[in-house]
């Protein structure tokens, strides 16, 4: 059977590449060097797991999917995935990619999720946006591994419940563990802590709700799913910032890892948001 060797839950900051590598040094933010050090240290947590394939969790930010047909949960099962849309290049200076898919694991995942009560949408022609490309840039910049992309709805209310995001992660974990293969699989997903976009609390010196951020990192670091589900609802996430629902993708990563303490936890306070870099190593000492 396949081995799940690492689960990474990371915030995605689309300006990372621009602010730390592309802008000339005199234009970079004061935290640029520290930010690069933290990202490169975090990257090592994936490299050390020696993955063969990446199951990646993200969310389409109204790039391919719109309100005429917006999926709650969707899996890609294509042989290739182009990545990065025009308006992401325009705003964030992100590069384009063509990533390989892993069709066999995608198909097994799709069937396994449906068998477990997740009636997934699926796509044979999926273009990947920055929710998956940002963690590629930070954790696997060579972009040399095939991926299985899974999208969730963190943007179009009513969203699935936090418990449902957790359960999705639990189901993904079972399916990876059941995959008849010798592959080493890592799961990498991105989301947010507290975040405001297009509202009065956006682009301030810190994220909109540092107290939520502190508690959120604590739930993940401590493996405290009970505390998380007692305190997080799709309604109250919005009070911490209108785009804080991106935290739910980190809940799915937590679900893939299971109710265990994280092996690696780091964070960085930036303008507009706080970064979190969390890794679990399931199945004990597989490194």
């Amino acid at each position: 059977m396949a081995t799940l060797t690492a689960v990474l839950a990371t915030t995605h900051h689309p300006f990372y590449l621009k602010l730390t590598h592309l802008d000339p040094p005199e234009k970079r933010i004061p935290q640029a060097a520290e930010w690069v050090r933290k990202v490169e240290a975090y990257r090592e947590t994936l490299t050390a797991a020696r993955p063969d394939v990446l199951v990646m969790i993200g969310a389409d930010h109204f790039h391919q999917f719109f309100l005429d047909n917006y999926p709650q949960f969707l899996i890609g099962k294509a042989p290739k995935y182009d990545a990065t849309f025009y308006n992401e290049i325009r705003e964030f200076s992100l590069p384009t990619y063509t990533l390989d898919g892993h069709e066999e694991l995608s198909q097994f995942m799709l069937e396994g999720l449906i068998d477990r009560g997740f009636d997934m949408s699926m796509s044979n022609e999926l273009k990947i946006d920055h929710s998956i490309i940002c963690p590629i840039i930070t954790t696997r910049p060579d972009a040399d591994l095939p991926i299985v992309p899974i999208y969730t709805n963190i943007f179009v209310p009513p969203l699935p419940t936090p418990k449902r995001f957790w359960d999705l992660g639990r189901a993904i974990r079972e399916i990876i563990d059941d995959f008849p293969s010798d592959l080493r699989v890592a799961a990498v997903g991105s989301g947010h802590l507290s975040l405001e976009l297009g509202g009065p609390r956006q682009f301030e010196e810190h994220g909109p709700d540092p107290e939520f951020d502190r508690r959120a990192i604590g739930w993940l670091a401590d493996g405290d799913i009970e505390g998380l589900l007692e305190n997080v609802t799709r309604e109250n996430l919005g009070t911490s910032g209108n785009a804080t629902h991106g935290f739910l993708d980190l809940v799915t990563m937590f679900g893939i890892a299971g109710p265990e303490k994280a092996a690696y936890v780091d964070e960085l306070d930036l303008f507009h948001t706080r970064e979190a870099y969390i890794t679990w190593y399931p199945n004990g000492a597989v490194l």
Partner: protein
Amino acid sequence: MSKYYVDKFLYTTDGDPELLRRYKEDPAAYIDWWEKMIGHQLTSVETTSWLEFTDEERTALIEHDYVALFEMGAHFFLSLTIFIGIYNDDYEAEKGPLSFQREFAAKLQHWRGKTYPSVVC
């Protein structure tokens, strides 16, 4: 109210550099053209017969009035992204990085601490 149609306008315009340029340069003429040529398109062949803006929505779009759009419940992500696309470079050249984003937030300060208008269509 036709929040969906406003969001469709923001989505389709923001995703095409030529349409974004036209919306920046002559919003009223562009919106007229968009309603005739894009607004009702469901696929390259099929159309939707009943979608239209209210007068208030059309005015807010013509005036690039992102405060009014926020208050109407236009989706925050679409509204922020398109107006960054239109204004960021000019503001940054004149007033420095993030100056447009911070002005955008400043104009919405009367919503701080309140329940925001719903983006549900």
